[in-house]
């Protein structure tokens, strides 16, 4: 074996002048050359970083739409003598207050815009395409993903899909809701092509997702470093693997669904059109066969990040490694057989009962993960830096999100809560309180690795606090008003719900402020942040122990050989931590292994 295996505890990189040995961020020549280099790069790190910025930009757009939605709902619309008051969005766009239906249209388009952007352009690609792309090869000791050009293609496909989506927005936006339920989506805006562009955009984005997922599966199977067996992989990899399996197996179905939807709009083929004998319920099956598993494409990467944040934050081996690893696969598997719970109110009785039972099953692996993470903290050596705080926030919010799922899995209560704000709150607690919170925590965690700079810890903590408080203030009242009967996607409401809407809107401002502080912290870090050590958190996975911050173009000076587990903090002192930061563990001799 001619591979030069570097010592895992002292893989200190030396900086050469050759590009392959320089930081991947180092510009190649002048501005134009650098831009060209980034545009044509097949380096997974650069693609990951480009994805990260694109996704954060889209998150900003979706966030603005969310703020607009909340603003509109601050007060109910009141029409007196044909003149509307309380339509903030319509006022903003200068719509005649007598044309209050147009105010509703603007709300509907904004609400749809928020949903579409957040689902298709932010959460689905968020963690896999940015952090996953950047970290998977680093974590498993590979030089790149298996198909680097496919990876670049995925990035351009993402851009292309986003452009179609943005074209639709520029044309006035669509009002289909992100679920595109037929026959509404096939008949609304009949004269315009914008719905077709939006659907086409989502269709194209599916390819981006497939390419990423396919790449990850092959990478994880085939490119692991010598010595890294399946159970030596960091749990991040397990989570991403589960997500990638779903991406590959579920996304093609949304492909054919959206294609048929486009045909439906262009040629009126009738498959989903009740006017021609087609069936809108069939559309719902097609749609949710993708869109429910994709919920787990969203949350599994969040859970993947969590395992790293918890283990490194507690500086302790993840409790029940195998249970956490297998629960990722279990979630991926079960995710394919629970989609019918989105159709509980469409009177498909037999399937409703089956799907209700199966839905409860998916709670088990999710709960197991939460229990394991919490147990990991037990007798750990816990730091409360920003990533750790985000991990704790995740546990708090995801527990609420998961537990409220029980109301929705039970058929009798679901008939009451379906399509109300209770659902809205539930999936925001899971998707945003889960995925986005983990994502933001993960960005903080790997920021030093990605850009070689530290951020201001204090301001990051302030941002965290505002996000945490703002999030709960925004979404907890929505549980209550949902249970009280406030349906979702309403531009207007009866006045009983006003107090909850107002709390929620105020919360959204706090939340936004928190994100703005994070943004400023990151900009400050890029401009003036202190240089980061290779391993500031004292972690044991390869991306920390074997690469510099930021990594060199080819990731590793020498192909790493894995000699210890990713979380063997009991046995290994993490290398390259700052002096004084890490103290020798004092093993308890009385403790039985």
């Amino acid at each position, binding site marked *: 074996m001619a591979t030069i295996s570097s010592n895992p505890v002292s893989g200190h990189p030396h900086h050469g002048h050759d590009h392959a040995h320089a930081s991947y961020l180092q510009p190649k020549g002048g501005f134009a050359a650098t831009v060209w280099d980034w545009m044509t790069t097949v380096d997974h790190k650069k693609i990951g970083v480009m994805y990260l910025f694109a996704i954060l930009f889209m998150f900003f757009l979706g966030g603005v739409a969310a703020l607009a939605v909340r603003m509109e709902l601050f007060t109910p619309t009141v029409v007196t003598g044909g003149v509307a008051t309380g339509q903030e969005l319509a006022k903003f766009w200068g719509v005649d207050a007598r044309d209050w239906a147009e105010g*509703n249209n603007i709300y509907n388009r904004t609400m749809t815009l928020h949903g579409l952007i957040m689902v298709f352009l932010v959460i689905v690609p968020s963690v896999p395409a940015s952090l996953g792309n950047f970290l998977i090869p680093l974590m498993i000791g590979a030089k790149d993903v298996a198909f680097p050009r496919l990876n670049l293609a995925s990035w351009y496909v993402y851009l292309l899909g986003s452009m179609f989506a943005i074209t639709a927005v520029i044309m006035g936006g669509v009002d289909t809701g992100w679920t595109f339920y037929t026959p*509404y989506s096939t008949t609304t805006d009949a004269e315009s092509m914008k719905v077709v562009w939006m659907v086409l955009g989502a269709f194209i984005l599916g390819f981006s997702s497939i390419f990423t997922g396919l790449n990850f599966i092959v990478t994880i199977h085939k490119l692991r470093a010598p010595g890294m067996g399946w159970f030596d992989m960091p749990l991040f990899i397990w989570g991403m693997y589960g997500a990638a399996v779903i991406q590959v197996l579920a996304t093609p179905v949304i492909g054919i669904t959206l294609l048929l939807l486009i045909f439906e709009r262009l040629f009126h083929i009738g498959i989903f059109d009740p006017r021609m004998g087609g069936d809108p319920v069939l559309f719902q099956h097609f749609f949710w066969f993708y869109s429910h598993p994709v919920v787990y494409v969203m949350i599994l990467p969040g859970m993947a990040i969590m395992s790293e944040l918890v283990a490194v934050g507690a500086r302790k081996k993840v409790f029940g490694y195998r249970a956490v690893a297998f629960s990722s696969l279990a979630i991926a598997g079960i995710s394919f057989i629970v989609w019918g719970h989105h159709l509980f109110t469409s009177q498909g009785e037999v399937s409703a*009962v089956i799907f209700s039972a199966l839905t409860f099953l998916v709670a088990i692996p999710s*709960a*197991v993960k*939460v229990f394991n993470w919490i147990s990991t903290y037990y007798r750990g050596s*816990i730091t409360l830096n920003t990533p750790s705080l985000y991990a704790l926030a995740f546990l708090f919010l995801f527990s609420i999100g998961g537990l409220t799922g029980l109301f929705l899995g039970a058929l009798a209560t679901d008939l009451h809560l*379906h*399509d109300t704000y209770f659902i809205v709150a539930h999936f925001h607690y899971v998707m945003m309180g889960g995925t986005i919170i983990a994502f933001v925590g993960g960005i903080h965690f790997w920021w030093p690795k990605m850009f070689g700079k530290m951020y201001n810890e204090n301001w990051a903590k302030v941002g965290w606090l505002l996000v945490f408080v703002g999030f709960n203030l925004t979404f907890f009242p929505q549980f209550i008003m949902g249970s009280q009967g406030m349906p*979702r996607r309403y531009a207007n409401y009866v006045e009983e719900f006003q107090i909850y809407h107002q709390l929620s809107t105020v919360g959204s401002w706090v939340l936004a402020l928190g994100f703005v502080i994070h943004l400023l912290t990151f900009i400050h870090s890029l401009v003036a942040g202190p240089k980061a050590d290779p391993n500031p958190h004292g972690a044991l996975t390869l991306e920390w122990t074997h690469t510099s911050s930021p990594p060199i173009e080819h990731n590793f000076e020498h192909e790493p050989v894995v000699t210890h587990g990713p979380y063997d903090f009991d046995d290994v002192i993490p290398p390259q931590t700052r002096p004084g930061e890490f103290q020798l563990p004092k093993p308890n001799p009385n403790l039985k292994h």
Partner: protein
Amino acid sequence: MSTSMDTLLALAEGRSLLHRIWFLSRGDSSQAASTDNLFMFILWVCIISFVLLLIPIVYFPFKYHRSKQATNYVQSPSHHTLLELAWSVVPLMVMIPIFVWGFDGYVSKLASPADAEEIHIRGQMWNWTPRYRNGAETDLSARITDTETDVPVIYVPAERPVKLIMSSSDVIHSFFVPDFRTKMDVFPNRFTSMWFKPMRESTRGPGGKYIDEDEKSPNFRKPYPGSGHWVFCAEYCGTKHAEMGAWIVVLPRREFEIKIHELATIFPEGTWAQAGKTISTRKGCLQCHSIDGSPNSGPTWKNMYGATHTYTDGSSEVVDFNHLREHILYSQRKIMTGYAGQNMPIFAGQIKDTELDAIIFYIKTLSDKTPQPELDKANQEPDFSQPAQ
């Protein structure tokens, strides 16, 4: 009947603080109590589980903080099979009763008694039209408001099972009654059904009214407490999805019979034009067509009669009697320029001849281009021995 009523009232007496937070009302249907109990059970499961989770989430970071590491850092086991098995199985054990309970409630909300009072509900953008057993349709006289956002009233008999048989004329809607804790999607290509037994008669306000007509808050006006139940559309259906409500008033059985008999009379008012106004409100026309020239989802009826309309296929027509009839019955055949995608329902088969005539007369009276003889006729009371138009 009275025993279950008593049970319900007793439950209402003991309505807990939690219940008051999470629900606006007591459950007002026979099945609602069971749903509420399940909700409360799950809520307590959630609260207890969450607190149990929260204790370590808050406690551990302080107890095992790195600053105390020198004293309390110890190696701890990295897995514990029995423990892990336990926390996989225990949640499952908790979930099984929840599933069974939910399943039971689901069946009880769907399987209706054979003697249920059947009411057909038709959803269309953005209106609910009930049709009672005798063919009577929406009550006009008791609409909640008289403005653009008014909602129809649906009468149901008290303490009798009511089965709703629902279909849609255009897109998917969902008939949601929060007070009855149930909803069901309404499809254009299949019937769906739901049933409930309203447990309490609606209370009347001063003057024997169910709706406070003095308070002129025109939008989703707050009715008297207990005077009825909101219906919301819970499946997104476009522009006025949020205003697609209805108001269920629970009447004593005898009053219900009288009411639907009254409603079965097509002409509650005098002239063709007045009847037309009544019927066009009933049919939801005025949801989209304004009568004063203001813009809306559909073209205004002000001065429509006699005007020239252009269509998306490039043709144009003068609006006359035949034109109106065709466009009401087969609205999708030709689409007016600027109104594509608004999806006016197709009324063929859903509207009676006399109703159609009355609506057309009413449209005539809104136009200053209508010839005087036609206006005169519109303002006469109908004579059914003569052809209408």
